[in-house]
Each structure stands twice: as C-alpha cells, then as structure tokens.
C-alpha cells in the first residue's frame, strides 16, 4: 500500500524541516517520494500540520497499582462519554481500551508505563496487551529490593550489579530502569517516616545516594539507551528543591533522567513556607547537559495519585480526597494510591501549577525537558491538549493566572515569562527528544525508513481543540484515527531491551529465591503466549 499525504505543513525537527510538502508511506514505513508511481491513497492535507506520532515517556497507564486505583474510585470514571462504543470498550471510562483510543486521538503512537515492579510484570504486560493501537514500553523498578541492596552492601561490584539489573530487565521485559525513592520503601518497612538522599536504609547501612549511583552505573554498563529514570526523595515537600539540586549534583555528569521535576521545585519562601523554586531548578538543568527531566505538570481537577513511593503516599494520606487511600507494602517497592483534588483556589496547588509551567518555559533545550503530567498524578493525560495550549500562548496563561490566588502567583516567576512554544518546539519535545531518550531510532521523525507513525492536525487557533482530536493518525502506516475517532483496532507492541549479561546470575537468583521466599523466580515470568496477542513485543537495541 502506497500512501501520499499531500500538501501539509510538515514539521520534522529531526530533519530540520518546517515547510509545505508531501510525506509518502509504503506499508508500515515512510519512504522517499515514489516518482512515477501512482499512490493507492492520496490524502489532501493542505493547511494541516503533519508531525511524527508523539511519544510519551512517563504515564501510568497500566499495572497493579493503576488497577487498584480504578477499583478504589468507581465514582471517578463513569463512562467519559455516555454513548455506545464505536469500537469495543472504547467508552469504558479509564479502561485499557479507552486509554489506547484517547492517546491515539491526540496523535500519540507510543507511551511508556514507567513503574513496573518486576514481580508484577506479567500483570502490567497483560494490561498493556489490552491497550489498542499504540505501542508501549515499561520501566522496571529497582532500588528497594533486598537482592540489590545486599549486592551493594556486600561490595559485590558493578559487574554483579549490572548482571542482576540485566537479568531483571530480561525477565520483566522492560525498556529501561526506574528507581523510586531509593531505599525509602525498604526503610518504611522498618518504620522510618522520612528519607533523604543521604539517609541510610536500616539493616543495610546504605544511603539512597549509593543505591542511585549503583543503578545509574549498571544502566550505563549494560548499554541501555534510556538513562536511569529517577524519582528522587522528598517528593511534594516545601523546600525540596534542595533535594532536586543535590540529586542533579549526585549524577556527577553521568546520564540521568529526573521524573516529574515539578514535584521537586518547591522553595520555603513566604508566610506559608511554600514557594516556587522552579527558576533556580531550571537553571541547574540548563547547566547540566547530562540531565533530562519530565515536568509532571499539575492541572486543576480531581485526580488520583498512584505512586510506588509508598513512604510519600503514606505521608500524604491526610490529603486524600475522597478520604480513602491504599497503602501497599510490596515485595520490594509496593505503592500507594491517594485520590487528590487540585483546586485553582488553593494556594499550594496554584504554586504547583505555576512552577510546572515555569520549568517548561525556563528550561531552554526542548530536547531535555519532556512533556508529562505524570498521569494521573499531576493530572490525567486527557488534559494534555490544554497544557499544549498553555505553553504555546502567554495569553492563555495570563487568563488562567487571573483566576489564581494572588498570594500564590507572587510566589512564582510565571507572570514575567513570555516564551511561547512553537510547533517546532512541540515536535522536538514530544517526538524527537523521546525517541532519542529511549533509543527508538525509527520513531520521532519522518525520514525515509522511519516507522509510519504520523499525526496530522487541523491548524486550529484553539490549540487545545487541535491537539485533542487529530485530523488523521497513522500507526505503522495504517489509518487508525479520522477526525478524532478510532476507525478500527489494531494491537501494538511493548518495546523492550535485551541487554547482555552473565547468566550465572540467574542460577544465583534461583538459589536466593528458594532460600528467601521458598519459591522459584520463574513464577514471575512473562511468557509471550500468556499475553494473547500476536507479536506482543518489539526489540530496542542496546549498545555498549
């Protein structure tokens, strides 16, 4: 099948392109213009905006904790549109099916679920297999597991740690490694109630910093494209910018991805001891080229926080709205589900909202700041279109700012920021940068040979409307969205890495599991046949 997308404004920063032109698709790939051949289909996209499919690097779309949140909050997800489904289960609020449909409708074609406990990997992959259209990937979470902490404590050395990380990624079929409040979940099991970068895990005599350094090194040694994805300590606490700055320094120039930085951008100014320190933090990010961040923007509405930072979630139980939380002490990390309502008339929430936008606007390089709401922690991914509108228009921001408590606005620099993201910047941030960060060489751009994931938008001055419902979306060259509606289901793949490691560690792990848990680690396996889809996985190359 040869397709020609004719006459659109093609925005493809990977190729330095922003201009009127054609894109050709043959089967599942972008190809050079096929001179002399008549395309099977021509779409006239004159006046439309043509980009590669968007890639979300951090969105909690699947897994045990997400599903617990669904079951905890039936009142939050009545069918989002009370109308019969055009495709199966697509109107089931917050279902896996709805997730695939709504992401695709926004022009997203790849989404990473960033928090998979290795022991719950099968569950996560089963849910991902029921998300239609988009490709997915998972980050395997380490950093609170006895085996790793013991290796570090006992001085096993970087090679053994890398072998263990490699074996875990292999078994849980992840695309990268995430570390969530390193050591804190373990410390919480010892009744520790707060945990800093240099606090020590009882019984291991190991600091959070030491765990992060070890994992960071292991990811590099294994040649995994995505750097260690870190959720650092003290999330959400006034004055925690110090922790974020210390974490950036702790990276020692090595690649590090800091997740949902907005939640660490708080100073202690003002009479409430809570202010935005986003400007200072953005400066640190600008000065450290080894660091990438995603924002974790807050938007005003009811949501639910789902985090494997069980210590933080426990401490946040008092803020739950409605008043019910789940606190889960898992095999390693566990997690907490705390419903939350961000309100625009709340001082703290208003500061949070503004500081996220400050990060977007003050971090200069769109290749190092990633678009996220930490779905659903800052806001559901369905608010993305509104967020695009905010970073693209200072006028839009001014009208929101006018409704916020003045005391909160004074704690931020947002009113002074005039920057507006262009389409080109947006495409860098949501296409080019994620493909580079994850090592997805054939995505995020429209060069010949690239996967034919293409999103075409109306150039609607209402940017939120534009990004909510794409005009056309192609996944692997297959038209899946027409005017915001799913045309049909297809099922994508979960992208994973297969790093090379010394398999002696697998035998050692068998002995360990038998000794400690009285079971085989094979019980936690993720067999391809169990997922009930053809080709549920796709491979991402590692390179040392």
């Amino acid at each position, binding site marked *: 099948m040869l397709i020609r997308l004719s006459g659109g404004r093609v925005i493809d920063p990977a190729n330095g392109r922003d201009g009127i032109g054609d894109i050709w698709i043959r089967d599942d790939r972008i190809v050079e213009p096929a001179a002399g051949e008549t395309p099977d289909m021509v779409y006239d996209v004159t006046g439309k905006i043509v980009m590669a499919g968007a890639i979300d690097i951090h969105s909690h779309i699947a897994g045990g904790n997400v599903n617990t949140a669904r079951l905890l909050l039936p009142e939050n*997800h009545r069918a989002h549109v009370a109308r019969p489904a055009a495709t199966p289960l697509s109107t089931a609020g917050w279902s896996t099916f709805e997730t695939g449909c709504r992401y695709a409708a926004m022009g997203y074609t790849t989404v990473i679920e960033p928090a998979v406990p290795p022991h719950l990997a099968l569950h996560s992959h089963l849910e991902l297999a*029921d998300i239609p259209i988009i490709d997915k990937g998972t980050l395997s979470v380490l950093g609170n597991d006895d085996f790793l902490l013991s290796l570090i404590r006992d001085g096993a050395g970087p090679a053994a740690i890398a072998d263990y990380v490699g074996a875990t990624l292999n078994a849980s079929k992840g695309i990268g490694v995430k570390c969530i409040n390193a050591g804190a979940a373990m410390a919480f099991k010892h009744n520790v109630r707060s945990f800093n970068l240099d606090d020590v895990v009882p019984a291991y005599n190991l600091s959070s910093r030491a765990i992060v350094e070890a994992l960071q090194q292991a990811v590099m040694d294994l040649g995994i494209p995505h750097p260690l994805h870190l959720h650092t300590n003290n999330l959400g606490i006034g004055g925690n910018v110090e922790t974020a700055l210390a974490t950036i320094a702790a990276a020692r120039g090595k690649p590090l991805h800091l997740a949902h930085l907005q939640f660490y951008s708080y100073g202690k100014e003002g009479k409430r001891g809570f202010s935005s320190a986003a400007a200072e933090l953005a400066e640190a990010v600008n000065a450290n080229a080894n660091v990438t961040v995603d924002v974790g923007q807050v938007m005003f509405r009811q949501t639910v926080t789902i985090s494997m930072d069980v210590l933080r979630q426990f401490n946040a139980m008092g803020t739950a709205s409605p008043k019910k939380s789940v606190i889960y002490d898992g*095999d390693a990390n566990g997690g907490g589900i705390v419903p939350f309502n961000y309100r625009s008339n709340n001082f703290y929430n208003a500061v949070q909202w503004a500081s996220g936008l400050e990060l977007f606007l003050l971090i200069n390089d769109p290749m190092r700041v990633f678009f996220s709401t930490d779905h659903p922690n800052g806001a559901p991914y369905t608010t993305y279109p509104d967020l695009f509108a905010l970073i693209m228009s200072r006028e839009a921001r001014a009208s929101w700012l006018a409704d916020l408590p003045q005391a909160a606005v004074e704690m931020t620099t947002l009113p002074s920021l005039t920057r507006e993201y262009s389409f080109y910047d947006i495409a860098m941030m949501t296409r080019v940068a994620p493909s580079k960060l994850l090592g997805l060489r054939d995505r995020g751009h429209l060069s010949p040979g690239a996967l034919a994931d293409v999103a075409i938008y109306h150039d609607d001055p209402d940017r939120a409307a534009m990004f909510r419902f794409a005009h056309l979306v192609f996944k692997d060259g297959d038209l899946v969205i027409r005017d915001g509606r799913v045309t049909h289901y297809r099922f994508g793949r979960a992208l994973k890495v297969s790093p090379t490691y010394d398999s002696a560690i697998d035998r050692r792990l068998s002995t360990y599991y038998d000794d400690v848990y009285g079971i085989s680690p094979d019980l936690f396996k993720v067999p391809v046949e169990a997922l009930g889809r053809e080709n549920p996985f796709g491979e991402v190359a590692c390179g040392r």
Partner: protein
Amino acid sequence: MKILVDGAAAPLEAAAAEAARLLEQAKLPLIAGLAADIAGARAAIALAERLRGAYDHMYSEFLLRDLDVMRQSGQFVTTANEVRVRADCVVLIGAKLKTAWPDMLARLDLSNPARFDEAHAPRKIFWLGANPGDAEEAGAVKIAAPSSELPILLAALRASVAGRKTRPDAHIDGKLADLAVQLQAARFGVIVWSSESVGRLTIEMIQGLLLDLNKKTRFTGLPVGAAGNVTGVGQASGWMTGFPMRTGFGRGYPEHDTWRFEANRLVDSGEADVAMWISAYGNEAPRWKREVPYVAITTPETQFAYPPKVRIDVGTPGVDHDAVEYVQNLMTLAATDARSASDAPQVASVIRLIDEHLTKGEGAC
C-alpha cells in the same frame, strides 16, 4: 468431553452457532459463573459488551466484601512474600482460612522467625475465631469467638489500642488488652483474613485497626482471595471496564451496580432472559431458581438442576492447559503451566468461537 445441544451430542461448530443464536436474540443476556482464567474472563467480558449484556462471578460476593471496604475507606495490604520474610507479629482471623488457602502455614513459614526481622525472634502469632485445632497447628495464641462476634471483638481491640475501655467482660478485656500491647510492640505486623469466612464489618474493623496501628508502628493486611479465580477475574474486569463484576452494558457503556447486576437476582426477577454459565475450576452449577435457558461452559462432571440448552465441556486452567490466574502464594497474576496437558477446549477458545457466530457488533479480544 461432552458437547450437547438440547441434550443431544453435536459438533463444536454447531453448538457454538446455537449458543450464539440463543444469546443474540436475548433482551438481556447474562454471563454468570465466570470461573475462568484471565484469557477466559477477557473473552467473556468482551462478549458481554458485544451482546450488551451483564456479567457476574459466582464468588463476587466475597471479592466485593474486600472491595466495598476498600472503596469506602481504603486499605493496607501486603504480599505473602513480605509476611514470610518480615512479619514478627501475625494475627490470623476467621474459621476457614486454611480451607481458603491450604498452603498458608507453609507459605508464610510461620514456624520460623522472619528472616528480615532484625530481632530474629520467634513470631508472635494470634488466631481470632479459629477452627478447632487450627491455632494449635499454627502455634498461635487462640482467642475464641464465633464469626458473628468478630466485629465486636475487633472494635474492642481497636479501642484498647487507642487506650479506651469499652467492654465489660473482664476476661476477654484482659486478653484483648494484652493483644493490643503486643500489636503495638510489633515491628512489622500483619493481619490475615479471608472474605469467605468473615463479613464486611469484620474487614472494616481490620482496616480501621491497621490505620490506627500505623500511626506508631508498621502493620498491614493480607487478604486471602476466594475460589474460582475471582480475584484474577476482578483484575481483568477492572482494566477492561474500570469496574469489578456485577457490571452491565445495557446502555452501550459499562455500568456497575452490585445489586442490579447480581446474577441470581437478574435471573430470578426475569430481567435476564438467557444466560451463559462458566465454571472451569470445579463442578459448580448455577443456583438461580427460575429456569432461564442457558449455555453451560463447564468442567465435565458438573451436575445441573435442569439441563442447559447448549453444553460445551472445557478443561481446567492450569491443569489441562497453561493459564494466567491469580495466585494467592504470590498475590498477583501468574502464568501457570498445565499440570497434565490435554486437548480439552478452553473457555477463551469456546467463547471466541461463539463470538464468531454473532452477527451484530465487533469482537474486542
């Protein structure tokens, strides 16, 4: 393996076609039983949507006891692994724990100190409302109570933990006061219960107690799931529709109502005019009272009160075929290899075949 249409042997294709015809002409088709592996549950829920029917599980009642408390007030929860390696204090509650989880004592390794307990002392074990002999076998201090008294007992315990006195019974008061002291002295304690043998009020009290205990120390809960993979089916239901079982698609989108979509009520009230009964884990037959026509997808030994219109026998997940199911020992979904593989049909493949014979809508799975 029997395949029957109106009691007479039939080819699988013909049985599937007849099942499809029957389901499709119903005003409100009901999918009940639903004791299946994850693949079977996914296919069944997708079928319910396509038919604009409703679905329920034979043991939803038990799952909903835990879920109702959770969605009312939240939950503290942990895993079998964590209890095994960390719990220095274990409170077992209810009479039928061992029936619900035969592996419990061995899996939790209660006779040995917890490996990661820093004091490495023998565990303190208590059993409230045990069956005769159970507490002794577990090496537990026994606090006798009939199931109906557990909520009051736990309320008193909670009061005692909070430093209040509420109960005039000096003997029990003394025992509970002592238990309250032990709970507060725990480093990482756990309460274990099964919703098959304790009611919603008891679970509410357990969760309230856990909330109070966590103000000063660490304490968490270990719910034991009921039979028929009900916990696993509840998970699949959650990600497919956002809701647990007792969900209907009559309006074209899922609505969850634990009363409206209870299977026996739907049948007995006459609202459901055709049913599908799925029981792949054991020989359970439907218990509704009205003789609604139904399709049975069950294990071969199942005895019915009245014959199904269509009967297709299936194998048992994890026995006849590889399966994904909720595994209590792991507290998550796991892939189980067939213990004695056979070519018996599976729930998912039978439903897919029925689905192919439907004329309306689109299959999801």
